[in-house]
């Protein structure tokens, strides 16, 4: 079947199925199981209302349980077996990971990414938010800085190839170097260690807009009076920004920071599309993809390592959410 037609059928079946499920399950509950009429109408309605939440939640719970909860256990279980999937090797995959120099390098690079990308994105985002807020054309500027958010990581990698390319007639960086008198073009993606930062900048370029939008809303939420009071107290613009505004939006900064951190741990596209993990740029997600389809035991072990890195953020998020609900 033509995938377009198949897609159309899926939309109809999927959407129709969802609507149908909710509608008919609800009707069965109200008309057949606990009819809202007769002598027990009141009690029946109450009984139906106790069941209804679960009716509404069922598809979501099934999907989440199957695709996100089970894999945490499933992946861990699979990571205890070797490539074939039949031989139990305990933590063998983990110990061979630790022994692998490329894994250690990926881990180091990933920690670099986690340190640099959220910090730089938040910094640029805060800067852009604060600066554009005072301009008449601020919204246009914001829109343009925000734009990379819509671009895929693959597309972004390609876009930045036109900056990094090892050719002064394609790559902007080498063109600038030529202009300054350098006679030899360099491939910035092959400079050991520093190439990581060139890759990180692609993600920073994408995420700054996200940070800016959220921080700008937070800045606007600051009571104007506190700023005015600081002006009357004689604070200069920098003092106002760092001593009055930033402390008031600290909560939002933390949210932005952690959101980007989580994202960093999911992205393999940029490394995959630019260096393919060569020249010492491997990170955990792309390292995992290198073993995906070849050695599931090792791939799941890497995935579980990523999960362990994410765990503190997850726990912190849950604690925050529970606090808010009280």
């Amino acid at each position: 079947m033509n995938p377009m037609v198949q897609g159309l059928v899926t939309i109809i079946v999927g959407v129709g199925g969802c609507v149908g499920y909710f509608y008919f399950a609800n009707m069965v509950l109200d008309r057949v199981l606990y009819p809202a009429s007769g002598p027990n109408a009141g009690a029946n309605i109450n009984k139906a209302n106790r069941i209804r939440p679960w009716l509404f939640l069922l598809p979501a719970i099934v999907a989440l349980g199957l695709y996100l909860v089970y894999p945490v256990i499933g992946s861990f279980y699979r990571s205890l077996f070797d490539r074939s999937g039949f031989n139990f090797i305990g933590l063998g995959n983990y110990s061979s990971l630790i022994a692998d120099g490329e894994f250690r390098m990926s881990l180091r690079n990933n920690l670099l990414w986690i340190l640099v990308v959220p910090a730089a994105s938040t910094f640029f985002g805060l800067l852009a938010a604060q600066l554009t807020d005072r301009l008449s054309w601020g919204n246009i500027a914001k829109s343009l800085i925000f734009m990379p958010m819509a671009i895929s990581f693959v597309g972004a990698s390609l876009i930045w190839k036109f900056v990094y390319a090892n050719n002064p007639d394609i790559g902007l960086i080498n063109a600038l170097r030529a202009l300054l008198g350098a006679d030899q073009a360099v491939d910035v993606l092959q400079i050991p260690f520093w190439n990581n930062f060139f890759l990180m900048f692609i993600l920073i370029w994408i995420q700054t807009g996200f940070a800016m939008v959220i921080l700008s809303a937070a800045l606007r939420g600051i009571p104007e009076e506190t700023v005015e009071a600081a002006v009357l107290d004689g604070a200069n613009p920098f003092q106002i920004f760092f001593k009055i505004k930033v402390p008031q939006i600290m909560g939002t900064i933390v949210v932005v920071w952690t959101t980007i951190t989580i994202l960093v741990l999911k992205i393999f596209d940029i490394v995959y599309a630019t260096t393919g993990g060569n020249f010492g740029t491997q990170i955990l997600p792309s390292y995992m993809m290198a073993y995906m389809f070849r050695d599931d035991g090792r791939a799941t072990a890497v995935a579980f390592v990523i999960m362990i890195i994410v765990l503190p953020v997850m726990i912190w998020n849950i604690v925050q959410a529970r606090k808010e609900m009280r």
Partner: protein
Amino acid sequence: MATVKLTDVGKSYGPVEVLRDINLDVDQGELVVFVGPSGCGKSTLLRMIAGLERITAGTLEIGGQVVNDVPPSQRGIAMVFQSYALYPHMTVRDNMAFGMKIAKKPKDEINRAVENAARMLQLTPFLDRLPKALSGGQRQRVAIGRAIVRDPKVFLFDEPLSNLDAALRVATRIEIAQLKERLADSTMIYVTHDQVEAMTLASRIVVLHGGIIEQVGPPLDLYERPANTFVARFIGSPAMNLFEGKVERVGNATAVRLPGGGIVEVPLPSNGAQPGEKVSLGVRPEDLTVRPDGETIYQGQVSIVEGLGEHTLLYMDRTNDDDAVIAKMPGVQRIERGATVNLNAPPDKLHLFDERGLSYLYR
């Protein structure tokens, strides 16, 4: 149209009891107002009658039927919310018709009901507008109209005027009073923290405090014959002055000795009071009069004078931690700050409460 009967009704959230022993009969055609300070449980009680909060003790009957477990829509009630709760994406007409549409009533019946209600509330020109295109007062009327269309046995109002500004509040209050006259048969329960609304609208007022009913009665009864010090101070503004004293003599009238040494005859039966018992003597600020000399209830130095034109308020600080004594004089008074005044009141305007704060009238 129906009666509402609450028997030993209570509400607790886990170990926290917010309402207890609520006993109340609302007759058909009555407009009963629940008043009390914030946190007294008045809104909770209304929401329990509506079915929006579960009743954890006692029984609630509407129209003679126990409705504890009946969901809100089946109780035959309509509710007007403080925030109006208009559906923002529906026109005025759809807002008013929503309940009947849900009940699958025939179209022409719905139209008739909506148009009647709209006419009654002068909303006809606005029927096809969205709520956001209406003023606050108009929104309030739509909320009321929505209740009327449902033709309920009981109307419930949850602080319906508190989101309006002062001028509109007065106008809408009068409209509600007129509406009540037109819908003479319908039973209404109305929650407010504003005692002016309570006094002007109610056929009976229920004063709630700390989760219990302090007193139920017609507005002027509550004003003239408060059952306890709480009601005495809650109804009327500024609040009633209370003076500590001791019973001196008992009989058909009760004589009370005040700390200043004076003895006041209160023409109320002592109802079993013993001489020497501690009592509180209550006098409303508007009943106090100033005399340069003679028999006094209280003598003190004026610390603040507030001239409001139509009347003048005098504040006299007391030595202990009690509230200042307040006297409300008619018109403009030429009394200077710092002047010493003697206060007195006609004997029939005196109230007497025992040590627990209960009125001797009801002992």
